[in-house]
Each structure stands twice: as C-alpha cells, then as structure tokens.
C-alpha cells in the first residue's frame, strides 16, 4: 500500500491506496464522495468526470497515485455547502436532468467549458459535452441549460 495525499474540494486528504487503485475508487470508496458515478468504468461514458487542477478528467481511468499532491474538485465542491451553482440552477430550471446519473459529469464538463469560454456557441457546448453520454434527455435540454447558465454567469 502507498500513501496518497491530495486535496479534494479544498480539504487535504490522506488515504492508503494500491498501485492499481483509481481516483474514482478513492473518491467513492475511501472518501465517500458519491457524485462521481461508476458508469462504464472504461473511460467511455464520462459520468465519473472530475476536475483535476481545473482540468476535466475521467476518474475511473485516472490512477490514484498519479494525482499525488494535486487538487480534485467534484460536484460537491463547485460551490460552498448550501449554495447552488448557476449551472445546477439552470439544469434544474431547464430540465437538464432526467434520471440524473450523467448529471454530475455533465455539470463538471460544462463548468470546465465555461471556465475557459464564458460565452460558448451551441456547437461549442456540443463539442465540450461530446464525451459525456446521456441516455434520457437527447441532450437538447442539457445544452439549453448550459447556455442559460452561461448567460446568467455573465450578467
């Protein structure tokens, strides 16, 4: 076993991990942070997405020891506890979520986009979310939600 030290949602954590442990396993099984979901576990669906030093990564195919000393943000950490992020508000208002399984990954992928491009076009949103699968919504209302959040965050 090896000691992994990382910052998760602003808090420093130390956990014991094996050589093959993934970041997703650390988050869910060791730290009990359950917004990153176990979808395909092969890096294809995007529902395990988290931000690693601000960059969108798939935690199911990210080796835990490779994030030594880095900072991870999950859905729980994008606002202060009790607050709601404009993206969360927009997903709620525009029905950007049906069963909700893809939603944490969708919101983090959207945040990663808006952090670098606050005024995306519809096509840019599509491109940014193309690695996150959703089986319920047909994506239309997810894209609507992201564009609405971008508008709100600008004003």
């Amino acid at each position: 076993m090896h000691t992994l030290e990382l910052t998760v949602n602003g808090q420093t954590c130390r956990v014991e991990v094996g050589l093959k442990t993934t970041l997703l396993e650390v988050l869910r099984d060791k730290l009990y942070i359950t917004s990153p979901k176990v979808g395909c576990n092969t890096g294809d669906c995007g529902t395990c997405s988290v931000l690693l030093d601000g960059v969108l990564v798939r935690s199911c195919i990210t080796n835990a020891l490779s994030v030594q000393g880095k900072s991870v943000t999950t859905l729980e950490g994008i606002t202060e506890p009790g607050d709601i992020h404009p993206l969360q508000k927009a997903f709620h208002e525009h029905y950007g979520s049906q069963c909700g399984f893809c939603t944490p990954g969708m919101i983090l992928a959207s945040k990663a986009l808006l952090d670098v491009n606050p005024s995306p076009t519809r096509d840019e949103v599509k491109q940014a979310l193309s690695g996150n699968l959703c089986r319920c919504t047909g994506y239309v209302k997810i894209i609507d939600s992201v564009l609405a959040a971008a508008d709100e965050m600008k004003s």
Partner: protein
Amino acid sequence: MKKIGKGIAAGFYPSGMSGGGDSSQAMVKVQPDGSAVVTVGSCDIGQGCKTIMAQITAEVLGIDYEAVKVVNDDTDNCPLSFGTFASRVTYVDGLATKMAAEDARRILFEIAAVMLECSEDVLEAVDSQIRVKGNPDKSLSIGEVAGAGTFGMRKFILGLGHYMRDPAAMDPETCECDPFCTLAWAASFAEVEVDTETGEVEILRLVNSYDVGKAMNPTHLEGQIDGGATMGVGAAMSENLHPFFPSLEFQPDNLGDYAIPTTMDVPDMESVIYECPSTNGPYGAKGIGEMTANTPGPAIVNAIHDAVGIWITNLPATPEKVLRALDAKGA
C-alpha cells in the same frame, strides 16, 4: 455526391398493458398542516413520475405543488403497482392518484361541512382553501380543516385509489375485443443528407409530433420526446448488438463499442405537441414514454430512400450498408 431526402413515419401506441388487467394503487394522506403525501408503487426512472403525481394531487386538493411529497421508493411499503413500463405511469398511476386525492378531498369536505355548517356538495378546494362555491368569504384554509379534522375529530385523512382496466374479453367467434385503455399517435419527419461516395448519412433535421392527450408537464414532455427520439436516432444510425448476426460473436460489451448517440450525433430536433384528450385518462392524458423511440428510425430510413433510392431493411444504417445497397442498385 451529396443528396438530400425527406421521410415521414407514423405510429400509435397504447398506454398500459394491451389487454388490460394491470393494476396501480395510490394513497394520498393529508397531513394536519394541509400538506399532502402521495404514495405510489411505480418508480421514477427519470420520466417524471414524482412530478406528475404531485401535480395531480395538487390540482385535486387545490394546494401548491410544493406542498405535496411523493413517496415511491420501496415496493415493500408502497401500494401495489405493476411497475414503470408500457407507457403506463402517467395514465394508470395518474388515475389511481387522482382517485386517491379525490377520496382525501371527500374526507376534507366532510370535516369542513361540519365546521362551515353547510352541505358537503357545495364545497370546493382551491387556493389552499376549502370554501363554499360562489361564496369565497365562507372559507377555511386547508390546514385549518386538516388540523381540526385530525386532532379535533380524530379523523385520518387518507384517500385511497385503485385503477385497473378489466382484462379485455374477446368474442370467440370474431376475435373482436377492445384491448387498449387509449391510443397515443405520433409522426416523425426526417431530413437527411447521404454522401454517395462514403455512404455516410447525416440527419439534418428531425421533427417529432405527438398526440399526448394532455401535456401534463410540457417541459418534461419535450425532454421525453427528445430523449426517445435520440434513442431512435441511435437505433437507426449506430447501435448494434450483433454486428455479425446470426453469429453472436463480437457483440459490444461496453459503452465504447455500443455506440449510443453523443451530443455530436443528435440533429436539431423539434417537438410538436398535439392534445386530443383521451376519454378516460387523468385530465385526458395519454402515455407516450416508449413510443418516442419508434418513429424516428423509420422516418430516417424513408428519408434515405427519398435521397438515393435504396431501402435499408436492417438497422443501423451504417455507411457500409448504404454503400452496398447503392452498389446493388447500380448507382
């Protein structure tokens, strides 16, 4: 060369089990503060069961949507339901919930009639009040009625509902029967561009229209139509469980191989909602959950035929199949 074509497909779909006999029960309990708890056995898989049951209860009891809580998370404890399938929840559970809410409202009226010294049948439940029709001054808040009924009169304000369509009887001579609760109708319109050199098909536009009876929640409805249409697009264009059928080898075993549509594969979509009420659904509603995936595929196949004159009879319409069909046609 790129060629453009247009196609249409239409369909219909029953709400609930064809042949009847599927059952749903519901309980609506009005709390002493006038809020309500609905308990049903059908789960919410994202289609909006909780939302619709809360809307129906709020409508019947005349209270705010926010004052209704829906419990449907454990079939051990919830009333009987055959389940979430067959586009049946809004229709069958909706009817059971409406009956249960009306039953709870009847008990509220019994209590209010004593308090207001009037007959039960002149009362109505609106704006979180129980009041005498045509005489809004003679009213009580629903919380006052529920509180006085619960603690003063020892009432249990619990309404029960059970909807089950009788199994359809069949005439042994003619086989005639009436198997459906109601039928919802649909049509999809697709415009595609076919590249005759590569066989690639791009969907330029997809319009899906549904007769939903009554749009209980138009935003949810659009979401469900978009989602179903995207499944239809996937079935038509990319999803394949057995690429070498009848050999079952090489079947996809993860989401990287089984190619469901991504944001980049979904065309611009438009939903057209048409309301032709069913005679017996809750507020005229029909179920459209499953049928939303049915018409986009054939509309796309028809559009491919319109564009280049080939029939794709085995989905998905991959570039390889399109090219082989074009070859066979001698184009």
